[in-house]
């Protein structure tokens, strides 16, 4: 089964619940099989199947809830303030994995998914643009915002942890 483990990992991050993630993956494969004829050979298979998974998630109850609760202006035209933090303050090492995981969990789903697709799935901007059905420019600005949001969150959590 193509991308099975990675799709499952991605589904868990989206739903934040293992049972729901299992249902989501199962439905994704069912839809992929049913719609396999709509897949155009030569186009990106991975982006195609991730897109199915994501669309299925977005129309699920959890997905609707996760996306409707976000008052954040994710793509506003506002100029980003310069980063105030110094690199020392975000010495993110792998030993801090748990902290980073908690921070990822707390990010809005739109930020979480774009970060995961870029860093974990190592998708190109083009692939991300296809998967999320957003223009390349939006991929870049959303990624940049997501990274900054994660940085800030980790800093806050590091601060509160002492």
């Amino acid at each position, binding site marked *: 089964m193509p991308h099975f483990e990675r799709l499952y990992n991605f589904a868990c991050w989206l739903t934040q619940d293992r049972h729901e993630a299992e249902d989501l993956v199962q439905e994704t494969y069912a839809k992929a099989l049913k719609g396999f004829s709509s897949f155009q050979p030569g186009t990106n298979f991975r982006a195609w199947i991730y897109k199915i998974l994501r669309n299925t998630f977005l129309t699920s109850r959890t997905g609707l809830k996760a996306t409707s609760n976000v008052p954040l202006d994710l793509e506003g035209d506002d100029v980003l303030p*310069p980063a105030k933090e110094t690199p020392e303050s975000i010495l993110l090492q792998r030993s801090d994995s748990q902290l980073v995981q908690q921070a990822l969990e707390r990010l809005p789903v739109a930020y979480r998914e774009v970060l995961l697709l870029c860093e974990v799935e190592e998708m190109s901007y083009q692939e991300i643009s296809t998967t999320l059905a957003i223009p390349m420019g939006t991929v870049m600005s959303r990624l940049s915002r997501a990274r900054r949001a994660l940085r800030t969150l980790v800093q806050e959590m590091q601060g509160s942890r002492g």
Partner: protein
Amino acid sequence: MDRAGEQQVPHRAWRPVRNDNEVRTMVCENWADKLDAYLDGELPPAEARAVGEHLRSCGACAAESLSRVQQKRAVQAAGQRFTPDPAFRARIQKSIAPRRASRWKVVWFPALAGAMALVIVGAISLHLNRERRGEQQLLSELADLHVATLASSNPVDVVSTDRHTVKPWFAGKIPFTFNLPELQDSPFTLVGGKVSYLNQSPGAELIFRVRQHQISVFIFQEQALANGCARKNAQSARSFSARSWSHNGLCYFMISDVAAQDLDKLRELVKRAG
């Protein structure tokens, strides 16, 4: 692997950022916008080269890019978190297997063909992915070491353009020896070298210069690398150009932002010395 990277990233390398914060935001705003695309390997070659050049001359941006690389890697590590239950895998396999095959031949055949195609595409992409991932990770570590060297205020431990000084300096520091190329009549100069670590194994990092660019040449013992040398000739890592080959049980990696032709030229010289 990480430990080696950490050793190469001395704390002093990022201190200037704090002091120069204001200067950085004033001078480097244009560059800061491009750093993400640069580190994601998404900049066109000419722009990537320009950013690379800037990073060499700007300690603040170099340190900033290091910190972003670290964040990328932290998210990559933290993001690989959930593994499916074997029972769940079996259930899915069963659910996508064709049912009531004999009675519904018309439905059965396309479904099976679809499933087969999925499995084949999956197997191929999994294999390619795994291979590419291992290789990319190795190149990514080396790119980090290279950036760390660029950002360091003491990029080399033995400073010399004389290969007869640099080679003996490594004696006793690393468990192997190698030959350095004759650079007369070539555009390259040797800047120096230092001991570098990969997978907790020591190796040599040599810095060459061509025009304003620096090239890192890493030499490690083949046995020190988990996957052996990169099987295919490595071409790029995060918009750096890279080359790799093995010779006499040693793996050679070159990484830089110079044009591919320059990298190939130096590779020939190093190979000839081999």
